[in-house]
């Protein structure tokens, strides 16, 4: 991870600040930083979104390809995750430097998003045992300033909302086999129901309290944290302890409670924003990287 160095005195300052519910940048313990979201930013994808959270900057592109269902779930499509920790974010990621973090992140994303609770995977099936949609979710880290998981999960939800999969019809081929026919009308497409797609809230234990949306400096003060993925209904779909330290059982319960509350509150404004953006339609000027 793009590590920052923080000396003991700075750590003490940050920890006391968290205790007083006044973080270095003036936020309280449960405040997020300013967030900017835009969808449909790269056109070679079927869906894309860019999220900026403080200086953290991620771009998610989704491509739908036709593949074969996994034998264990013959009537479901599936998602594949790839996180590209590019050298853009920090020179440490040059060459193979970002691979370790990338595979760690993508494993967790797979656990969080690739299940029936988050997405109707059955809707991605074209013909059981034969064909299904595989959604390649590619995450590109452009800048790291802490709290990657939350930013990525929001970007993934936004990109899934933005994803349009072409309609496929199955026709009987001449030799008896089924043939797939892709609709070439760009408006004739299927959209995904993203209602249940969870958002991740990462909580960092600092001193005796915990904070959400930790900056890199704050993360350096924390020995253990909890990653909680929460749906819009407030149910928890995934929990992971992260970091090298241990937690008291009581603080785990407190942290999941906070995570649930904060995570639940993320969904409504996100969906509103995505709908607003869509309502503006073609009139909206794309900002992208030129803004």
């Amino acid at each position, binding site marked *: 991870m793009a590590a920052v160095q923080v000396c003991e005195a700075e750590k003490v300052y940050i920890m006391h600040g968290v205790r007083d519910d006044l973080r270095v940048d003036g936020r309280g313990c449960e405040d997020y930083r300013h967030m900017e979201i835009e969808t449909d930013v790269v056109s070679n994808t079927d869906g894309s979104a860019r999220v900026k959270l403080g200086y953290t900057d991620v771009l998610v*592109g989704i*491509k739908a*390809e036709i593949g074969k269902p996994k034998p264990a779930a013959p009537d479901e499509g599936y998602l594949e995750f790839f996180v*590209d920790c590019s050298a*853009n974010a920090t020179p440490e990621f040059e060459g193979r430097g970002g691979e370790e973090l990338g595979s760690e992140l993508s494993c967790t994303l797979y656990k969080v998003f690739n299940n029936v609770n988050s997405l109707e995977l059955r809707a991605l099936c074209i013909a059981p045992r034969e064909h299904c949609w595989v959604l390649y979710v590619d995450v*590109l880290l452009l800048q790291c300033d802490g709290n990657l998981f939350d930013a990525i999960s929001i970007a993934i939800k936004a990109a899934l909302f933005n994803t349009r999969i072409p309609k496929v019809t199955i026709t009987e081929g001449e030799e008896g086999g089924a043939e797939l026919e892709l609709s070439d009308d760009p408006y004739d497409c299927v959209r995904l129901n993203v209602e249940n797609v969870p958002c991740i809230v990462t909580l960092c234990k600092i001193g005796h309290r915990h904070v959400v949306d930790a900056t890199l400096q704050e993360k350096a003060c924390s020995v253990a944290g909890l990653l909680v993925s929460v749906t819009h209904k407030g149910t928890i779909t995934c929990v992971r302890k992260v970091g090298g330290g241990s937690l008291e059982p009581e603080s785990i319960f407190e942290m999941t409670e906070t995570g649930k509350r904060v995570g639940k509150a993320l969904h409504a404004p996100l969906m509103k924003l995505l709908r607003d953006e869509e309502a503006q339609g073609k009139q909206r000027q794309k900002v992208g990287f030129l*803004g």
Partner: protein
Amino acid sequence: MAGLELLSDQGYRLDGRKPSELRKVQARMGVFTQADGSAYIEQGNTKALAVVYGPHEVRGSRSKALHDRAVINCQYSMATFSTAERKRRPHGDRKSSEMSLHLKQTFEAAVLTSLYPRSQIDIFVKILQSDGGNYSACVNAATLAVIDAGIPMRDYVCACSAGFVENTAVVDLCHAEESGGGTVMSLALLPRGGQVALVQMDARLHQDHLDALMEAAMTACRSLGQVLDGVVRQHLQEVSVLTAE
């Protein structure tokens, strides 16, 4: 190539451009805050991001450091979703290593490296969307990022591609034209002095046509240079107005 007519009878290209016409260029400097310099460029549908870190202490093995100039370290990568067909790896394949090397050579020619002994300058470029002319977009984006980082250069480096279709030189090829099977040349130019920083050509071309092709590419680079110049001056004006007291 059969079936696809790259140049119409009226002399227009697939996207309606004239042979010597460039695609629309939009660019911005200073996209990111954490890097020393950064820039974003759109050339038609090709979109590239460039980030510059440095000059800074040489990382990794110290033996890489040069006592009389800076080391330029480039990495070219493509977002996995940048192409029509999904790429499996963003970098590390033969093509992108080659591209990284070309970028390094290009910028060693332009950056005044001798001012920074024992240092290293990182230039990382990423193609977000690929529609032909990836090398040129990267060079142009990297030039802007290097200027944004305040690193001294002899001159801009501008790059453009050019190809030969039905005896006509066409410039700034898009993906369809690039994959049409003809000769493609990439040229990086320091426009003011007219020095060529890099020329690359893969396929066969009759010697008689080389001059014409070079000339077309150089003209295109010069006009690109003017576009970049506009971007830099605009940026300069905006920022210097702000800093004025």
